């Protein structure tokens, strides 16, 4: 330990930052957690490097770009992705196909760092006040929109206002319209409705609808309708059925990209994508599944980017009415899940077993204090009998035709039979499922009160659980299809939001995990990995687990 160096670092930070430095210095958090939390609260890269060096006695380097940087200059990369489901509207988009395209031309206040965490994007740095309810973002200077105009805090304010109006799932209730102070064009000061330690995540690539768009952008404007971002790639053509092409933005603030351009081709079939990669017709795949993607997983010429993600399925059960209102019935159904078999059958092992809450076991704030629920048909039968169903019960399990979900529904149906659940499957198209079963628009108050009794819904990756907790479980949450309402949970969630450091968050998460595992408003059987990759003829590609592939540093080998 280099005490002198550590002391210098200690003296240059405030009390909250000091707490993080001390946690790392005393070995209470890992190097990864230190970097992650440091980035979130706005510690500078040189300071983090100094702390790492002081604690390890090594000449550590600031977290920076990875990759060899020895690739060729020029060329156009061919990327395969899923066909966008709707228009390229940055505010309203809901699918990974659109997320990936938008992230080429538009940028976020916080982007994806080399370590998989957030890193400075359009904001060079950020800090918060002591109560974590005012966040100040120092905007990068010299950034220009593709049409040549300057990027300023006015653009940030207009974007945030549009997001609030649209009811963005991450920002709803966190900020209000007019919350961005734009008195300095190079600084965006955002006042929240309450403390939030994770706010930088909510304006980062991990809240995919929050790229900063020009002040003149109107809600409903699409990327192809007005291709005017700040990012490294300019959209040159877009055909919703076939592909999008981008060329290098020569005026990008990050310098010249090694590649000249990219051609993003749309696919509706995983098998075709795999064949295209095997036939060298594409260079990279934004996302593929383990089942059906064996040809890629076993291909020595293909580099798999395997990311542990919080992507999961929730088997919601109505807590307010019907057969599942008694929590013993919900616990019984959760006891019938053969989680290990699901992980193997549906993901060839590329998933983690979950414990009926939404904190993934690899998350830094995960608390391992709640025992893992395992399959136990006998206990499930007993719980059903205790709840007044000695002869079992009949119910309809609703599910959407999406990825592995119909197969999951079958596994649940088969696994629950022995315990006395007679489940009838109703597999529906996405429109019908979301609009009629999961969260029907009517009745609107409380949201989702028209939801079916039992169903399976999909949730994408989020690095922090704020959106899941706020939308699916908080009383009157916008996606609360189980109509769960618990004052104990709401209080624990508030504590989590108001946590001042990583240790507090972990403690709060332990409580949230316990409550959700006990009440089981939803069953959560697994978190599955996000799989992406590229041929070994290209290098320095990074991906988020939300369909965004970042290739500004990529090059052909």
């Amino acid at each position, binding site marked *: 330990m280099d005490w002198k160096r550590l002391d210098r670092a200690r003296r240059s930070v405030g009390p909250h930052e000091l707490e993080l430095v001390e946690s790392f210095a005393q070995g209470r958090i890992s190097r990864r957690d230190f970097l992650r939390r440091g980035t979130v609260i706005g510690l500078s890269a040189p300071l983090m490097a100094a702390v790492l060096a002081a604690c390890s006695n090594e000449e550590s380097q600031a977290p920076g770009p990875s990759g060899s940087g020895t690739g060729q200059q020029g060329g156009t990369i061919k990327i395969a992705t899923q066909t966008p489901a709707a228009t390229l509207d940055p505010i309203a988009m809901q699918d990974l196909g659109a997320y990936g395209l938008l992230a080429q031309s538009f940028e976020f206040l916080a982007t994806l760092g080399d370590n998989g965490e957030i890193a400075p994007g359009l904001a060079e740095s950020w800090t918060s006040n002591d109560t974590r309810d005012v966040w100040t973002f120092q905007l990068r200077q010299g950034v220009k929109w593709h049409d040549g105009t300057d990027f300023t805090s006015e653009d940030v304010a207009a974007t945030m206002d549009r997001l609030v109006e649209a009811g963005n799932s991450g920002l709803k209730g966190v900020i209000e319209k007019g919350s961005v102070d734009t008195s300095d064009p190079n600084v965006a000061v955002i006042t929240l409705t309450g403390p939030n330690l994770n706010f930088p995540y909510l304006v980062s690539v991990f809240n995919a609808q929050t790229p900063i768009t020009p002040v003149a952008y109107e809600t409903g404007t699409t990327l192809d309708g007005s291709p005017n971002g700040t990012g490294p790639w300019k959209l040159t*053509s877009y055909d919703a*059925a*076939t592909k999008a*092409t981008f060329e290098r933005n020569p005026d990008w603030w990050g310098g010249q990209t090694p590649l000249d351009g990219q051609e993003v081709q749309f696919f509706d079939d995983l098998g075709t994508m795999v*064949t*295209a990669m095997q*036939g060298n*017709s594409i260079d990279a795949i934004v996302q593929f599944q383990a089942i059906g993607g064996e040809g890629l997983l076993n291909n020595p010429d293909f580099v798999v980017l395997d990311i542990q993600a919080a992507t999961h399925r929730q088997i919601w059960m109505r807590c307010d009415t019907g057969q599942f209102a008694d929590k013993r019935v919900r616990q019984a159904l959760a006891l019938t899940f053969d989680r290990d078999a699901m992980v193997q059958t549906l993901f060839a092992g590329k998933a983690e077993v979950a414990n009926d809450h939404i904190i993934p076991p690899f998350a830094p704030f995960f608390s391992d204090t709640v025992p893992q629920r395992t399959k136990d048909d006998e206990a499930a039968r007993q719980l059903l009998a205790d709840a007044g169903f000695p002869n079992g019960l009949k119910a309809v399990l609703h599910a959407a035709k999406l990825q592995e979900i119909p197969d999951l529904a079958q596994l649940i149906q088969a696994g629950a039979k022995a315990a006395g659940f007679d489940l009838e499957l109703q597999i529906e198209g996405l429109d019908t499922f979301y*609009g009629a079963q999961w969260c029907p*628009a009517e009745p609107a108050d409380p949201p989702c009160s028209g939801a079916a009794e039992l169903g399976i819904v999909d949730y994408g990756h989020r690095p922090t659980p704020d959106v899941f907790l706020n939308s699916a479980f908080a009383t009157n949450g916008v996606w609360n299809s189980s109509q769960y309402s618990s004052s104990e949970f709401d209080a624990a969630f508030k504590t989590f939001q108001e946590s001042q450091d990583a240790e507090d968050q972990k403690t709060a998460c332990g409580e949230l995990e316990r409550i959700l595992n006990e009440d089981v408003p939803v069953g959560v059987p697994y978190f599955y990995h996000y799989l992406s990759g590229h041929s070994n003829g290209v290098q320095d590609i990074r991906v988020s687990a939300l369909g965004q592939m970042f290739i500004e540093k990529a090059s052909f080998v």
Partner: protein
Amino acid sequence: MTRYLARRVALSLVTLFLLATLVFVIVNVLPSDPGRRIAGPFAPQETVDALNERLGANDPLLQQYGRLLKNTVTFDFGDSFKYGKPVKSVLFPALARSAKLVFLALLLTVPISILAGIVAARRRNTLADRLIVTVGLASSSIPEFVSGVTLQFLLGVQLGWLPVLALAPSDAGIGTQFKHLLLPALALVAVYFGYIARITRAGAIQALDADYTRTAVMKGLDNRRVLTRHVMRNALQPTVAVVGTQIGYLFSGLIGLELIFAYPGLGSLIVGAAGDKDYPLLEAGVLLVGIIYMICTLLADLLIAWMNPRARLVGEFA
């Protein structure tokens, strides 16, 4: 010929009117809430109602039907629900892609199949005849998406001779586009070769055995003239009729092949529109395919009428 043409065009217009009516009935039988489709499942009901009002979804059926007929004439179906763009701007690029594939497939299939059919007819019951018939029958019985996958794996992945995707880069010239389309086109050749060759063979056998052919030979015409002027002109009429009707299918029915080669043509677009309940696109797509069918059968009928003047008299005395 002019009267025949006028009669056929008039008949096509009546068919188009019936088709438009049928499309209207089908779309109105399906559950439809365009406002909800556009605004999404979470939009407030007021927004949905306003959208439905703006789109005319609440108008009386007769008014909606009149609008569809007008749209059919102008081919202006408004914006696609899914793409948020004019239907034409989505439909026509897909039509162009399908047309390229169909054109190449026909360019390869028709001459080879006709030649094989004539050879088989002239060498009836020889090894060549049996080979053409047997190979043709076998290849036609394999669906195009199966032969497509096989060709893709063998010629694309294993040997690396041809691109495995049918869509060429944006700046590709004709040569590159041809190369990209060759694999799916070959899959279609495999299916249609046997079919067209057998029909040609049957027609050619009939023509070769006909009195007019015997007379032509006996009056001393050389083989080439007999074949081109007398045999083929009569033998190819069923072939022309079959190819004419198959073109419509080729434009809209190759969904499996389009999926395998990531080549979104008209078929995939219409299926997608049906799945997405994108009614403007669905209506326009179905009508466009109907128009293609009509144009192709009309052209086939005109070609047959040119080859055989008696065909023009059909119905003349009815």
